[in-house]
């Protein structure tokens, strides 16, 4: 079954074409690594997929439902946005933050504890989330994303700004979630090495779809890697020139 189907999605903002006819699909159980340079449109595509941005052309289906017509599908989607550090002052405990991920009226403490246990943060459940380290906060946010038992997890550069040990721990967790809980994962990342190790499929975008297919097809093709590298450099220079 195709969990996600993106069909010719385009999006423009302030006179700039940010997404140009993007099409791909993700099967149940896949881990899709979404790569692309800064400004490629990954976050914008996620925003369209999550219903945060309307005004796009094309179709986005999640669990075979057009998200414009049925917003209830998001009840089965867990989301972790690009990491912003949590205010040190924010008084909620890790347990309280994870509880926010549960959409039903009845908040089950067992479910919260289960999610925290999976990410290895159960012993920190009563600590203020603002006082945790970057890696610990990230794990709490993952716990929040999975607390509602999602079938699809969308992660936008989740390893940004955290130390190497935490990154490795996080990638092991992703694998565990995919294999043990059968969660389909879409994960935007700049870490090509991690994507190569973990993802079953790769989608490479730079405003338009550059490549979509099996991971090994991308990483074993030197021409594709070179073209990706060059497009990353161009995007970097474009951003640099335009401030």
């Amino acid at each position, binding site marked *: 079954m195709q969990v996600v189907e993106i069909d010719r999605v385009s999006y423009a903002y302030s006179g700039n074409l940010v997404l140009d006819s993007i099409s791909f699909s993700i099967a149940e159980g896949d881990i899709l690594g979404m790569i692309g340079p800064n400004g490629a449109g990954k976050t914008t595509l996620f925003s369209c997929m*999550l*219903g*945060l941005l309307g005004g796009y052309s094309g179709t986005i289906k999640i669990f075979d439902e057009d998200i414009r017509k049925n*917003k209830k599908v*998001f*009840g089965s*989607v867990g*989301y972790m*946005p690009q990491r*912003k550090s949590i*205010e040190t*002052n*924010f*008084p*909620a*405990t890790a347990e*309280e*933050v994870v*509880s*926010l*991920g549960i*959409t039903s009226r009845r*908040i089950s403490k067992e479910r919260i504890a289960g999610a925290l246990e999976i990410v290895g943060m159960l012993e920190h459940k*009563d*600590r*203020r989330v603002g006082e945790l380290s970057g890696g610990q906060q990230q794990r709490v946010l993952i716990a929040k994303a999975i607390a509602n038992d999602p079938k699809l997890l969308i992660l936008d550069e989740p390893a940004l700004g955290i130390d190497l040990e935490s990154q490795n721990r996080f990638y092991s967790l992703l694998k565990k979630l995919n294999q043990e809980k059968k969660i389909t994962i879409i994960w935007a990342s700049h870490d090509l090495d991690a994507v190569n190790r973990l993802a079953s499929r790769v989608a490479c975008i730079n405003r338009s779809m550059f490549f979509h297919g099996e991971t090994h097809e991308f990483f074993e093709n030197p021409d594709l890697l070179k073209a990706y590298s060059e497009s990353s450099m161009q995007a970097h220079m474009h951003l640099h020139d335009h401030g």
Partner: protein
Amino acid sequence: MAITASVIGLFLVLRRSSLFGDALSHVAFGGIAVGLVANVYPLWTALGFSALGALGITKLRQSTKIPADATVAILLSSGLAFGILLVSLSGGFTLDLFSFLFGSILLVSVSDTLAILAMTGAILAIVIVLYRQLMYITFDEEQAKVSGLHIAPLNYLFVVLASIAVVVSMRLVGILLVSALIVIPNVTALLLGKGFKKTALISVLVSVLSVMTGIAISYAFNLAPAGTIVLVSTGAFLITLAAKYSTKKKVSEKLIEETKS
């Protein structure tokens, strides 16, 4: 009044909108001036102005890129200016107006008290029912939206509750000091609390104790109640801050000593 100010204030402080309460009280001043001039019960006109101002500024923030602190400044200054203009046209400041500017707990009538109690009860009931949603939009609006929460209506509802809380609290400490009642107990609670609910409860406790202590001191020494309440609240904050950092320093010094031995 202390309870609603602190409960609503926690969300305002965490949303980095501490001065929003100040802005609302200044807009309420415009509403009070209208009420006094038009011979309408000023509490209702203050509520109307404050709520409209709050909704207008929220819409402005959501629809434009004007920075949040600038919108607060616009609201604050225009509300106050309107009130001053109206007062000057109607013959100047009166005792009634002074009582709203500086608080007048001793002049609160029975009808005022009943109205305030009803509004306080309504605010608390709504916050208790929508507590998780309000916490979520305070934590991260984007994630809250993805989870299915209707952000815009929640934000509008919250600012209306904030405007009611501000107007209700004005009777206690006045327009000029109402933001202190909203902010200071919460900043104190944030130093102490572990957990959102616990922090909210501590804030209420600090707020109520500050008000009761402030009123008692002001009565005993014949001082202005509003100023006394706010200074007691400030004192509580400073003592808590000193105690917290002293404890942290002692713990750090002990840890360093242990590494030396």
